[in-house]
């Protein structure tokens, strides 16, 4: 039964990714639609971050170490454009503040 679930999830998850690439293969995108699509990447990433920091009941589960760690990550990512550096900054800040508190 678990195997069935894994296979069905795999097929479904591929179909979701492929669907609009095929469905909209000949669609002429109006400018407003193209502008809307530019906001997909930043908004989905932002919503994913919050989703990872909330419980299914909608409660925020981030304390000071998490918040400061993520702000540090954002600043380093913006300034350096280096994801490894941003990741290291975020994790180190989070661990340091958690250890001090």
């Amino acid at each position, binding site marked *: 039964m678990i195997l069935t679930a894994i296979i069905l999830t795999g097929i479904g998850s591929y179909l979701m990714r492929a669907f609009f690439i095929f469905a909209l293969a*000949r669609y002429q995108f109006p400018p407003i639609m193209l502008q809307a699509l530019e*906001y997909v990447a930043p908004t989905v990433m*932002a919503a994913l971050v919050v989703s990872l920091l909330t419980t299914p009941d909608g409660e925020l589960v981030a304390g000071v170490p998490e918040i400061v760690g993520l702000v540090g990550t954002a600043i380093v990512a913006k300034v350096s454009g280096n994801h490894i550096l941003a*990741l290291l900054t975020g994790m180190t800040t989070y661990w340091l503040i958690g250890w001090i508190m």
Partner: protein
Amino acid sequence: MIGEGASVAAAVSAALVVGARHMLYSVALAPQFQNQPTWFRWVGPYVLIDQVFVLSQLNPIKEPDTFRRYFLSAGFTFWSLWMLFTAVGVMLGPAIPTSWGVEFAAPVLFVSLMMAASNRPDKIGAALLAMIMAYVFAELPNRSGLLVAVLISVLIMLLVTRRGEP
């Protein structure tokens, strides 16, 4: 048997709702997949994960051959690393104490991707708006609040940025 079938259906549908953001990626990439060979339309979606999507959005490549090479190189690099490190994780995971909080790397990674994707002031605004909306709708079932938050934020951004235009 009916009970088992129902639980499989519930598990699969829950997993698909969680992954529904990939449908938005599919829409967003559709324009760039228009001048591409059919085989690439079949293979491309297979490696379409969050990181590859963000990379494809940084500097939209107009030239079809260049875009295809870029997308496949990024896609299969991530695919190989994903396979390799999933295996490493399965082996090392039990040895790493949960008190270390290694799972915090996930939000850190997505904040970094969010900043990379927000390469214009209005996109930073869109991201901040989406964070607020995602919190407001966080309790919707199976993380479907994520999609609602994205759709509302994009609509608000369109209304705000196009106000006053004909």
